[in-house]
């Protein structure tokens, strides 16, 4: 098992290397350098000799492949460099300031959508083909057709502008959390409800469930212990990648509610060609995704003892 995990982690380093190389060369292939936008915003040209000096200081006058090797060497020392735009701040500082917002939105969305999604899934599986199941299905159809930015738009229009119950933007206390988390939860709830219902309906037809009923166990115990536990495997499959994408935050929700999360910062950084920031976030996202996939695979083995990653001899 340990060997399997180590093998996967080595694979992660390989993926990170390729992703970093691709991003690095793609970024440098785009016309425009890090200081062009700054000059544009302040409506003045930076004198050429000054620009040359800044570029020389940041090593931007070296050939791109050489810059990449220097970058990799710095990475080995966990040095992610400085932001070109927010001068003087290290990438680590920027992450430490902005990522918590994204993680909070993601965490709250996780809690909320797991509670609602699993509940609706179990409910619609238990009350299959009744009006309750149909109402939930219709609700889910509507959710599916609404991308998060449309949901956010309507939530803002109705609850913030018309009723004035919640502020339209920001992230400072429970009152401001409600709308962003609601807007962010649509997709996850839909996925969780669908997979939970599907898996539970599958399991309900199996023989050990019939046995459990025949033993005279209460319907509640049969559903929650025998059916739900065995229906968890497909749910874990979708929950893994979902966690990864939630923990990295949402571009739409952060920009619609003006929340100073990582994505909000990043959308500015990409436009400004802030190379170290772009590199660091690409690798951060990639690492999180890959690690979550690994954890998901390990969770399978925990939930379902039949799954094993060690080849039998």
């Amino acid at each position, binding site marked *: 098992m340990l060997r399997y995990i180590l093998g996967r982690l080595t694979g992660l380093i390989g993926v990170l290397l390729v*992703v970093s190389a691709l991003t690095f060369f793609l970024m440098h*292939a785009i016309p425009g350098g890090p200081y062009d936008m700054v000059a544009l915003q302040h409506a003045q040209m930076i004198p050429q000799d000054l620009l040359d000096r800044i570029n020389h200081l940041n090593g931007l006058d070296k050939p791109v492949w050489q810059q990449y090797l220097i970058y990799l060497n710095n990475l080995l020392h966990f040095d992610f460099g400085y932001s070109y735009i927010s001068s003087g701040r290290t990438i680590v500082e920027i992450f430490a300031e902005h990522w918590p917002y994204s993680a909070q939105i993601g965490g709250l969305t996780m809690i909320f959508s797991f509670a609602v999604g699993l509940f609706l899934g179990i409910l619609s599986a238990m009350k299959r083909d009744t009006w309750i199941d149909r109402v939930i299905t219709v609700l889910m*159809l509507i959710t*599916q057709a609404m*991308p998060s930015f449309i949901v956010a*738009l309507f939530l803002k229009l109705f609850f913030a502008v018309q009723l004035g119950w919640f502020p339209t933007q920001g992230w400072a206390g429970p009152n401001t959390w409600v709308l962003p988390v609601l807007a962010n939860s649509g997709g996850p709830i839909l996925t969780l409800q669908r997979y939970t219902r599907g898996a539970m309906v599958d399991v309900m037809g199996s023989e050990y469930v019939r046995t459990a009923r025949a033993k005279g166990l209460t319907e509640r115990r049969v559903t929650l212990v025998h059916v739900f536990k065995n229906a968890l495997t497909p749910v874990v499959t979708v929950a893994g990648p979902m966690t990864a994408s939630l923990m990295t935050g949402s*571009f*739409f929700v952060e920009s619609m509610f003006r929340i100073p999360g990582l994505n909000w910062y990043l959308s500015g950084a990409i436009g400004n060609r802030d190379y170290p920031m772009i590199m660091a976030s690409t690798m951060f996202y990639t690492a999180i*995704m890959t690690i979550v996939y690994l954890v998901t695979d390990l969770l399978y083995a925990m939930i379902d003892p039949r799954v094993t990653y060690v080849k039998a001899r």
Partner: protein
Amino acid sequence: MTATAIAAPTKRAGMVLTVWRRFRTQKLALLCFILIIAQVLISVFAFWVAPYDPLEPHYVDAYALPNKTFLMGTDDLGRDVLSRLVYGGRVSLSIGILSQVAAVLIGLPLGALAGWLGGWVDFVVTRFIEILTAVPTIFLYILLMIALGPGFWNLMLAMTITGWTSIARLVRGQVLSLRQTDYVRAAQAMGGDNKHIITTHLLRNALTPVLVNLTFGVPNAMTAEAGLSYMGLGIAPPTPSWGNMMGTYQGLIRTNWNLTVFPALVLALVMMTWYQFGEGLRVALDPSIQI
């Protein structure tokens, strides 16, 4: 060989007919199919359906709320919202369908080759898929769109780069399981070459999940287009797109609600029709589901 050549067409016609019969019984999916045809017709004949030129300003009637002359009102330059929605649908539909065509053109052959040949081809293709899926899709889109700049064809390019992986993975999985089947081994034993086996045996049998994946891919691409245009990275104004209409006028939502609410509703409705159509197709194509 002659026997299969004669038998094949009749069998295919039979399959299409069976699927259509199974599809027809699902009322909601059928309704959505009709709505999709309507959407295609509206997009094709946009110049005829739209009451005004979507780019033509009517400065006197700027900021009009819905009324008899302008059914859905006008925007800041007095452009007719309904006409812009019709033309925006054209963009949305072309992106949705063309991106899936491109994904199939790349994903299908690569997936089939990887699954069939195995070895280094499989290794390279799987690694490529792994790397592309390791980066979150929306982040990859944003990175690519900022690199390429807004525009229809750049959007297509970005969607093609990210979109072919799911088809390729699907086809590869299908081919891997199909290559063990008796009829494929029989075809091999009879001396069928790679091209023959892949095109006549493997792809034809792997087609069903690919078809379903494609119908769901269309609304997904539409959402991505709308989202990117909404953030100003997709279709650039003045070309109308549902996403950039919502993005441009969201600040005016208190007074000129029609500028954002109508595009949002139309997008939601169109996405719902595509998802329900896909769901109906999936049920119709899956013989294990009783209707």
